[in-house]
């Protein structure tokens, strides 16, 4: 018999950025919240202080802070005609392993999506006409606009202490910021960090080319800061042990550093660690949920009843738990019906590695997101009339490539990788390497979706999630274009070697580590036939189930996802305590 717990107002599955921000709103409004996370408790000062954090092998190479495939994995295939196989080694499927989720060891680029990103379909029709959407029938608007989300972006940025330079405040374009961004209501909460040599070179060259370089907004606070929840943070020290690492300085914004300390003080908040949720229970009428079940570390099944269920368990388990619980209808690529698993999308990346001569870049000075970007070829910021694609990419350089194991594999093409000459080449190139990274949009496609795997199971005997994905033609064309823009920039910067990469040049594989940004599958929208959740991320099929995360993105932007995840989470939580709890039912 399963162990029964006391009923809560809200049960939150997963305490990453999405879950902790939801919990913060809901407990502040007085609701009784229980959060369940499959990971153990982990905190910055106790677990990743400066005596532990600066260790490339353990964190960047072995990735001990990440969830390993032995504990959780997905199966994968490129198209519905193949039989999927499990991903056995950790590469592209990167997930957090502890409370705090991937927000504990993320790189920290903290973007707002552009106005265009929320209405790709309508905007494309308006500017180019229907022909431009040929082959892109699943591209659809989000059902909310940038303006709807602006107050919640602002709230996320204040809580996280994001460092940046505004490019557009209430419509006024500001020097030094991104002129293409949507209007912000005010300046960033903390100032920018300083430029590295590489960043200055990138700024100068792109500006000379007529582009508009700006400082990437980052979750590495730019000055001492106290956030609206009363939590203190300290300025980033450019230690460089950042992406895949915790932060020992209270400088990298994470659920642990920014939200959880405040949550844990609230009497109406309870956290259960190492509880692996495998099912949402449906009420007898089939229209609502009554709570969730999880397995604790001893393998006992525990039921947590609740009036409201919020899935904040990242793209994969957000979809998988709906499938395992039989809520909503599984998407079928043949009939194109069903919405659960539909419109999975990714991040299309292309760019160039560049090597200079006689530079002293001091690449060990850096941070996960410390960089400069140009958005001149992102979204719809440039004319696509004569191009064979929609979308684009942010083109950036970032100062985080100083760690010596990783860098030993980044030598100019043709140079000795081993034996005689390797040491000399590496020595000559260590100070001379830079990256130009195009992080591009991703459009949904008929044969890109999530479903349950019929053959492989996890250690609880539940089916693994199966991903079916390959690049579509639009995104391949876009990536080719971006690759060339990266070459132009590299040459302008005076690089001696420019070596391009283009992830969409061959079929996708989870062993090619292109990006860990993985969206869709439980997409939001205004039409229950083509979206799994409404614009408040509320399930169309069970009105007290909310599915929160990048799983809701119907299309992906040429930016990292997390600020948008945070903004959506806060917006949903606010709708729950302001409206839903007083009048349960559809919010739209």
């Amino acid at each position: 018999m399963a162990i029964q717990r006391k009923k809560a107002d809200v049960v939150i599955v997963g305490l990453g950025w999405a879950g902790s921000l939801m919990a913060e709103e809901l407990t502040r409004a007085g609701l009784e919240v229980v959060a369940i996370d499959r990971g153990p408790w982990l905190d910055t000062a106790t677990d990743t202080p400066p005596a532990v954090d600066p260790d490339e092998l353990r964190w960047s190479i072995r990735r001990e802070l990440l969830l390993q495939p032995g504990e959780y994995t997905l199966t994968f295939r490129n198209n519905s005609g193949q039989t999927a196989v499990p991903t056995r080694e950790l590469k592209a499927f990167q997930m957090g392993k502890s409370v705090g989720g991937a927000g504990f060891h993320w790189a920290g680029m903290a973007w707002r999506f552009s106005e265009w990103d929320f209405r790709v379909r309508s905007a494309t029709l308006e500017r180019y006409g229907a022909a431009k959407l040929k082959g892109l029938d699943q591209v659809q608007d989000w059902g909310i606009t940038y303006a709807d989300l602006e107050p919640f972006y602002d709230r996320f940025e204040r809580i996280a202490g994001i460092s940046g330079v505004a490019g557009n405040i209430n419509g006024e374009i500001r020097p030094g910021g991104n002129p293409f961004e949507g209007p912000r209501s005010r300046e960033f909460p903390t100032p920018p960090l300083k430029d590295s040599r590489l960043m200055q070179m990138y700024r100068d060259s792109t500006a000379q080319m007529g582009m508009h370089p700006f400082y990437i907004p980052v979750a590495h606070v730019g000055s001492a800061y106290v956030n609206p929840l009363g939590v203190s943070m300290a300025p980033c020290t450019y230690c460089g042990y950042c992406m895949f690492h915790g932060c020992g300085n209270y400088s990298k914004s994470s659920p642990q550093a920014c939200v959880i300390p405040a949550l844990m003080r609230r009497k109406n908040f309870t956290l259960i660690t190492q509880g692996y949720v495998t099912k949402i229970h449906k009420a007898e009428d089939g229209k609502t949920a009554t709570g969730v079940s999880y397995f604790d570390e001893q393998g006992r099944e525990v039921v947590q009843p609740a009036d409201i269920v919020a899935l904040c368990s990242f793209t994969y388990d957000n979809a998988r738990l709906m499938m395992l619980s039989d809520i909503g209808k599984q998407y079928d690529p043949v009939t194109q019906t069903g919405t659960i698993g539909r419109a999975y999308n990714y991040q299309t990346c292309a760019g160039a590695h560049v090597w200079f001569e006689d530079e002293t870049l001091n690449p060990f000075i850096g941070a996960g997101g410390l960089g400069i970007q140009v958005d001149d070829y992102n979204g719809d910021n440039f004319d696509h009339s004569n191009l064979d694609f929609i979308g684009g990419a942010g083109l950036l350089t970032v100062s985080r490539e100083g760690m010596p194991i990783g860098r030993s594999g980044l030598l100019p093409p043709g140079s000795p990788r081993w034996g005689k000459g390797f040491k000399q080449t590496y020595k000559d190139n260590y100070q001379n390497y830079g990256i130009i990274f195009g992080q591009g949009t991703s459009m949904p496609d008929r044969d890109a979706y999530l479903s349950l795997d019929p053959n492989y199971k996890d250690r609880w005997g539940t089916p693994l999630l199966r991903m079916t994905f390959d690049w579509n033609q639009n995104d391949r064309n876009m990536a080719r274009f971006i690759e060339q823009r990266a070459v132009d920039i590299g040459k302008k910067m005076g690089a001696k070697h420019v070596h391009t990469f283009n992830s969409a040049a061959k079929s996708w594989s989870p062993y090619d580590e292109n990006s860990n940004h993985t969206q869709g599958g439980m997409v939001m929208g205004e039409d229950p036939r083509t979206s799994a959740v409404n614009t408040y991320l509320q399930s169309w099929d069970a009105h007290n189930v909310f599915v929160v995360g990048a799983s809701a993105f119907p299309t992906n932007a040429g930016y990292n996802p997390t600020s948008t995840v945070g903004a959506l989470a806060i917006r949903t939580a606010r709708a729950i305590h302001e409206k839903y709890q007083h009048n349960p039912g559809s919010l739209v």
Partner: protein
Amino acid sequence: MKRRDALRSMGALFAAAGLAKVGAVELKSVPPQTGLNREMLPSPVMSGGQGNVFKGQARATLTAVFDRLIPHDELGASASEAGCVDYLDAQMNGPYGESKDLYLDRPLRADESALMGLTISLRTRRDYTLAGLLFIDNHAQKLHGRAFAELDGEQMDAILRQLDEGRLDWEGAGSGSRLFEFLLLSVREGYFADPLYGGNRGMVGWKLVGFPGARYDYRQYIDRRGQDLGLEPISLIPVS
């Protein structure tokens, strides 16, 4: 007891596989322990190594391969002089070698590696590496009638080049170059990881490229753009 030895014995005491765990618990506040969680400290490798995994012929082959990949020259120590063999021995003796992190459930489909580009297949890294070294040695015997470690440098390099360029396969297409990549990755890890793990002795790898090691605050250096900062490297453990 010297500090380094003290650290080592502490590492042995708290040698933890993976992450420290509080246990399945219900938390109503931040756990009261706020000091460093000692289970998070890494476990340093005994100097001189243990020789637990690579013994006899396997150790000789590994040493020879590693020293062709990173030879001794005017720029510094060879891989084995820098401790890379001890490094890999310790790695293979722990959770990494046991492949605790991999999903190894069956079935293994015949087309799996074509779709996925799989490196390890369904066995532990330890078994994989030992089998790979044996293959290299057998190949040397076949070509020259001698163990790999007894070949001259040019002969060794010729075999390694065959693997590197995908001209010598072992257990299916692409397996030779995958084995090579794995050994190359391993030697680089040993040469450039913190000396705590047994390799990079005297921080030879870091000194080669000018990496300052486990430093944590560059605020006073960020404005000195384009300058050689001349920073001596530091390790997580004191090294001579």
